[in-house]
Every structure is written in C-alpha cells, then in structure tokens.
C-alpha cells in the first residue's frame, strides 16, 4: 500500500490533502522563489493523529516537513519532493493561562499575536514580535527562534519559552523545560528548524504590559552619525525596548506607503522605543534626547496613537518596498553594532556593483540587518545577480564577526552561506546532533545544515587555521 493510501485509510476525512491543485498552497513558504509539491499534506487536529502520521512516515521512510503558518522566509517549510507536509495550523488552542506565574500553555498553531490578545485582560503580553506576528504561529517561532523589534530588551523566542512538548520521529513524547537537569535540550529545540522533533505544545513566559511606552524618532544627515548614535545610547546605559534604523530609500518607501511624517530629507532614521513606568521612561528619555542632540530632526510620541503611527512606517517597510519593485529579496545577517556604518557603506558599494537598488531596514539594537534587494524575476539573470549580492552581504557579516542569519533561519536559502560560517568539523557535529534525535533523517532532511560535499563543491570551503579540512576530498 502506498503511503498516501495508508494515510487516507487511517486518518479521518478532511485531514489528508492530495492532488496537484489542493497541495499547491503548500508548495512554498514565505520564500516563494523556491517551490516544490509534496506527496501529500496532512492537517491533523490532535496529537494522536500526529503520532499516527509519524508512525506511517517512519514505516515508509518518507520525510516529514512540519509547517506552521508558512510565513518563514528561508524555505524551512518548503516541501521535499517525496515528503509529507505536516501542517499544524489546526492545533490552535490557548490551553491554559496562569496569570499569577505569567505563563500560558499553547498549541503550536496559535498565532503569535493571538497569545498576547488572549492574555491582554491580565495586563500581560508575549514579548517576541516578528513582523509577521499577525499570521505566524508560535510553533514556527520556536522552530526558528524568531526575533522581532523588541529583542534587545526582552530577548528572542528562546528567552521567552518555559517548556515545550515534542514528539520524536518515533512518536514518543518528550517534555523539555527550563528546570531540567542536564544538557540544554530546550534551548537546542529553539531554532532547530523542524529537524529534531515535532513541537506539539509550548509553555510561553508572559511579561507585564508596561505602564507606558514612547518612541523617539530621530533623523540624521549621515548614515554614520545615525549608526554611531545606536552605540552611544547603549553606552549611556539605556537599553531601549526597540532600536530600529532605516536608510533614506527605506524612509522614502515607508513614508510613501504609510504617510506618518517621516523626515524625507534625512539620510537615516532612528526609532527608539522606551518603556516601563512613567518615571523610568522619563529618565531614559532625558538621556536619549541628550545623546541624540546632534540629530537633524527629533520627534517624541506624545500619545499611544502617535507611538503606533511612528511604528507603522517601520512595520510596513517591507510591503512599502514591495510597491516599488516587482520582487525583493530580504537578507538577515547580524554584525556587532560597531560595524553598522561600515556595513551600510559596503552595501551601498555593492548596490552599485550589482546595479540593484537596496533599501536598508535594521534592527540596529541587535546588529540585525534586513537589507531588501530590489529586483525583477522576469528580467533574465536578475535573480541570480540578487543572490550573489546577498551572498556577499552574508560573507561580510561573518567576516565582521557576525552571523548569516539573526532570526529567519537557514532553511534551504542559506545552505551555501553556512559553509562560510562553519568549518566541516562543526557542520559534522550538527549532522550528528540531528542523528541523535532522528537517526534515519526523516524530519525535514537536507534543510538548515549543508552536506559537506556541497561546501567542498562550492569552493567556499571554510579555511580553518590555514588548513583545508578533508584535503583528501576531491574538489570541483
């Protein structure tokens, strides 16, 4: 019996999706340049059904690609050709709220913002806020260790998860918690991109809604001054709740889209959010305004509406850029903050070299860069040029002491770039970690960690201490 026949025999009606037309919506995630149709899609309604699916996939040695809301930007949830897509969107219940201990137990398909909505009446919220928070699911957030604009002060997903329940490929339940003795398996599961287990329940930490939040918007005549002010704010002892930077092209795009009063004459814009009690916010505001005294324009939000308006431009920067170009490609490198200005200058040079426009939107507080490279997929060779451009930015990030991905994950998109950040011994460790959980490599195989021969063939082999690893391997 084929795997699809077996799944249809075991699962209730409406769970299994097959056929060219029906599986098409699942052929890619948010990175739509890569597409692949799976054998079938299953949308289980409970943990028992997930266990049944895993068991059947294991018997047939068929890969399983777990999918949340499909908003990922690195192809992590893109199906493999002979795979079953395990979509968890129907597991969307907030199961328990423990307001006293500031915890909530949720199913993986709960949308990020739905957690904050569910606990709002207790004056609590869930802090990590990826831009896709209205759509992305908490299970996917854990799998990617997602970030957002508030990470500098409140941490990434990994800092805000108390426990997870996972299913191994054998369908066995494993609960991993912050209070576990032994290795940090809970942290390992954060950002594991669906390669180690299926996350079926998450206990998240909740944070008290601050009394007050205000945003300072500062325009600068030069990118370097703006970048330096980021370091200066932190040097002055302030940790803003959010610290974002945009370049002139991004300002123009965002203002054209959202019309919130961004300074169109500025070369760079800083958005700095301060939150806490009224006294805390005032004290921090005094310091920040002093640090930003060299800015060409300053505006401080005086009401919640003004605060939201100032953020609206930043939060709509991606769709705003989307209006200016048929396609755009979003990068996700991180660098130490002190290199921000140098990086921006390099990106501008590369923009000229590749003849492609770039809008820069940075989580500057975290050194997390989101250059958006504008291109047109219908122009022959432009996607390839864009990818080359992107790869140069990622290499620069690694060379500056940073990382190829801060919050979007590797997926299929950054497999080549991984060869630049890790040597073959380190990559080997990653493969063995996967094997410790999933010896037959059935969970999202081929994603997140490149095969060693891929790196060798790429010629971008990581040269470690001046020695090429595996000199015995043939290289093409």
């Amino acid at each position, binding site marked *: 019996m084929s795997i699809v026949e077996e799944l249809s025999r075991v699962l209730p009606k409406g769970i299994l999706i097959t056929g060219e037309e029906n599986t098409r919506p699942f052929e890619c995630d948010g990175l739509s340049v890569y597409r692949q149709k799976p054998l079938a899609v299953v949308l289980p309604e409970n943990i028992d059904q997930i266990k049944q699916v895993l068991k059947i996939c294991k018997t047939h040695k068929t890969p399983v690609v777990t999918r949340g809301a499909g908003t990922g930007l690195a192809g992590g949830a893109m199906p493999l050709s002979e795979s079953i897509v395990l979509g968890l969107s129907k597991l969307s219940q907030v199961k328990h709220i423990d307001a006293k201990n500031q915890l909530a137990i949720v199913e993986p398909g709960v949308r990020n913002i739905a957690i904050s909505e569910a606990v709002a009446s207790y004056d609590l919220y869930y802090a990590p806020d990826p831009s896709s928070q209205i759509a992305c699911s908490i299970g996917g957030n854990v799998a*990617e*260790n997602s*970030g957002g604009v508030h*990470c*500098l002060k409140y941490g*990434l997903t*990994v800092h805000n998860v108390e426990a997870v329940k996972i299913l*191994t490929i054998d369908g066995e339940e*494993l*609960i991993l*918690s*912050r*209070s*576990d*003795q*032994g*290795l*940090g*398996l*809970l*942290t390992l599961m*954060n*950002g594991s991109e669906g390669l180690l287990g299926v996350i079926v329940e998450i206990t998240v930490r909740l944070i008290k809604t601050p009394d007050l939040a205000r945003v300072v918007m500062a325009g600068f005549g030069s990118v370097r001054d703006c970048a330096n002010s980021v*370091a200066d704010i*932190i*040097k002055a*002892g302030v*940790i803003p709740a959010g610290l974002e930077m945009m370049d002139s092209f991004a300002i123009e795009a965002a203002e054209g889209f959202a019309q919130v009063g961004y300074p169109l004459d500025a070369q760079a814009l800083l958005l700095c959010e301060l939150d806490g009690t009224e006294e805390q916010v005032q004290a921090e505001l005094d310091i920040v305004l002093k640090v930003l005294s060299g800015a060409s324009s300053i505006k401080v939000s005086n009401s919640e509406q003004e605060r939201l308006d100032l953020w609206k431009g930043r939060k709509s920067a991606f769709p705003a850029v989307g209006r200016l170009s048929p396609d755009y490609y979003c990068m996700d490198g*991180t*660098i130490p*903050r*002190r290199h921000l200005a140098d990086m921006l200058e390099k990106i501008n040079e590369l923009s000229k070299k590749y003849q492609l426009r770039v809008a820069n939107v940075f*989580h500057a*507080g*975290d*050194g*997390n860069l989101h250059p958006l490279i504008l291109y047109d997929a219908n122009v022959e060779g432009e996607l390839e040029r864009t990818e080359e451009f992107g790869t140069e930015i990622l290499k620069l990030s690694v060379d500056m*002491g*940073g*990382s190829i*991905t*801060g*919050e979007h*994950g*590797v997926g299929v998109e*950054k497999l080549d*770039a*991984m060869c630049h*950040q*890790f040597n073959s*011994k*380190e990559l080997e*460790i*990653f493969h063995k*970690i996967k*094997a*410790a*959980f999933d010896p037959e490599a059935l969970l999202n195989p081929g994603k*997140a*960690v490149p095969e060693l021969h891929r790196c060798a063939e790429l010629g971008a082999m990581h040269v470690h201490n001046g020695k090429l690893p595996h000199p015995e391997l043939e290289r093409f």
Partner: protein
Amino acid sequence: MLDRIAQLQEEVKNASSIHIDSQWLNYSGVTEYFSEELVISVKAGTVIADIQNTLAENNQTLPFYIRNENQSIGAAYAIGAQDLSDSVLGVKIIDGTGELLNFGGQVMKNVAGYDVSRMLVGSEGQLAIITQISFKVIPKSYIVSLEASYKTTERSVLRREIESRLKTVFDPKGIFN
C-alpha cells in the same frame, strides 16, 4: 612553544581519560570586552569576581544569579541552569577528538546552526572542554532581582538516551569523565 589551546588539544588527542577542572584547564582572563556592545568574552578559567570587576568599571554586570563569585566562569557554565544559558552568546570548545570548534559568537541574534553554545550549559564537563565563553551583559540598573533557578532531578528514559547519544557526538572515545 605551543599556546595553551594547542597544548590542550594535544593532551586530548593522547589521553584516555580527562577530568576537567579550572586548575587543570589553566586558562583564564578576559579576552574581549565591548561595553557598548553589551558583550564580554572570557577564557573559561576566569574567576567570576574578576569578570564582575571588569564589568563594574562600566556599571555593567553578568545578568544571572551567581552562587559563588570565587568560582571560575567555566565551572558555573558546566553546572549552569537556564538563567545563565540565557546570557550565553557563543563558546569555543575542544571536543573529545581534540578539535577546536566555535559555536555562536558575539552577536545578540544568531540562528545559524543548532544552538550548541547554550545546549552545553549544564554539560558538567562530560561532552567537551569549554575554553572560551561570550556573554551578553547588562547595565546594573536593569537588574531587578536575580534568583537561583531550581532544577528537577528526574530524567525520563528517553531523555537519558538522547543525552548519552549527544555525549557520543562530542566525545566519541568517552574520555571526559
């Protein structure tokens, strides 16, 4: 003359059994500190009080509960809990085959590869020699109160099995004990 790391690598390659402690490691000092980046990198044998003194010059501190300031940071990491793990940004390690490996780094956000630098918190010297650790630090004024995080002692059969496989990943010859 070999530097200390190269010596340690040689020792691991030739040893059949090693018990790691700070005295044996003999590797201490702050390697890099960027106060405006909120990042410090330290050799694992560094005494915690020395790290705190360095940070205090800029009104900064390690953001986790410290049981004993006279302990080395490597020891605190080896027995550490989640609160310490939350501040870890990267580690350099020597695995059981003597390879020097680097996971994570000095940046706040980094999701390339599995999070080995946080996974090894609590590894009790059983998987690898931790030689250097990078931490996120914070201004003292942002510390409200720090409490020791408690740990449960029970471990499921499955968890023990996975942990023992992970030990083999890093220490295939089983020399760390």
